[in-house]
C-alpha cells in the first residue's frame, strides 16, 4: 500500500470525488520528479560561483580600463579642436569688423563725392 501521507490524502480525496481513473502506475510521481530534475539546470557549485565572480571581475577591469583610455584620448582631441576654433573665429570676427568699417568709409566718401557733383 501507499506509504506517503500526501499520496494517501490525494487518493482519499479523489475517491471521495469519484475523480479517479481505474488504475495508476505506482511510480508515477517518482518518474515526474526524475523528469523535472533532468530538465533542471545543473545546480551551482562552489567552483561555478568562483568562476562567475572571477569572470565578472575580469570584465569589470577590462571595461574600466577601456573607459579610462577612451576618455583620455577623447580629451586630447577636444582640447586641440577648441584651440583651433578659437583662433579661427577671432580672425574671422576681426576680418568682418574690418571689412564693414571699410565699406562704411568707402560709402561715405562716395556719398560726399556725389553731393559735390
Amino acid at each position, binding site marked *: *500500500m*501507499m506509504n*506517503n*501521507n*500526501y*499520496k*494517501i*490524502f*490525494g*487518493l*482519499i*480525496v*479523489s*475517491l*471521495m*470525488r*469519484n*475523480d*479517479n*481513473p*481505474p*488504475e*495508476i*502506475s*505506482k*511510480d*508515477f*510521481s517518482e*518518474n*515526474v*520528479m526524475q*523528469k*523535472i*530534475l533532468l*530538465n*533542471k539546470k545543473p545546480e551551482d557549485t562552489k567552483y561555478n560561483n568562483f568562476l562567475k565572480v572571477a569572470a565578472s571581475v575580469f570584465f569589470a577591469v577590462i571595461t574600466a580600463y577601456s573607459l579610462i583610455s577612451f576618455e583620455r584620448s577623447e580629451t586630447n582631441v577636444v582640447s586641440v579642436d577648441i584651440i583651433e576654433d578659437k583662433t579661427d573665429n577671432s580672425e574671422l570676427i576681426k576680418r568682418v569688423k574690418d571689412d564693414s568699417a571699410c565699406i562704411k568709409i568707402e560709402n561715405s566718401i562716395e556719398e560726399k563725392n556725389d553731393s559735390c557733383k
Partner: protein
Amino acid sequence: MTRNIIIKDDDEIIQECLSGNTGAYKNLVDKYQIRIINTCYKYTKNINDAEDVAQEVFLKAFQNLSNFKFDSKFYSWIYRIAVNTCLNYINSREKRNEKETISEENCLNEVNVSNDNPGEYYQLNELVDKIQPLIEKLPEDLSNLIKLYEIKDLTYEDISKRLDIPIGTVRSRLHRARNMLISEFRSLSDDE
C-alpha cells in the same frame, strides 16, 4: 489513536519550491496525481497516454510555478494546464493519424486498460467502497468541513463565513480531519 501527521497547505509547499526546494514539489504531485491523470484519461481514453500527458502537465506546472497567483487554488490552476495540454495532445495526435494509415497498432491504442504488468499499478476501483466508511467515521463537524473544502472547493474564507467560525479554527479542524482520515486509512491497510 491518531498520530500527528503533517500535511502542509499547497501554498506553503509552493513557497518552498519557489525558494529552491525542488523536492517539495513531489508532495503536490503525490496529492494531485490521481485527479490530473483522470482529467487526462477523460481526453485520451487510454491510461498510458493519460500518464504521459499528466507527466508533461506536472512538468509544465513546475516550470511555470513562479507565475502561480496565490489568489486561486493550486488544483484549479494545474487543472487548466492539464486541459490545455490534453487538447494540444489530441490535436497533434489527429494530425499524426491523418498522415498514417490505419494499422493494427492504432486499433490497440483504443484499449482502455494498460497492457503492462498489473503489479506496477494501483487498482483504484477496488478502493472506492473502502473510503466512504472512513469519512462516516469522522465527527460530523469535521466530515462537513472536509466535504466543503475538498469536494465543494470552497476556500478557508468561504467556509469561515458560511460556518461563522474563525479562519484559524477552519485550518486547525481541517488539519485534524486530514490526520484522522490518513490514520484510519493506514490502519485499514495494516489490517489487510
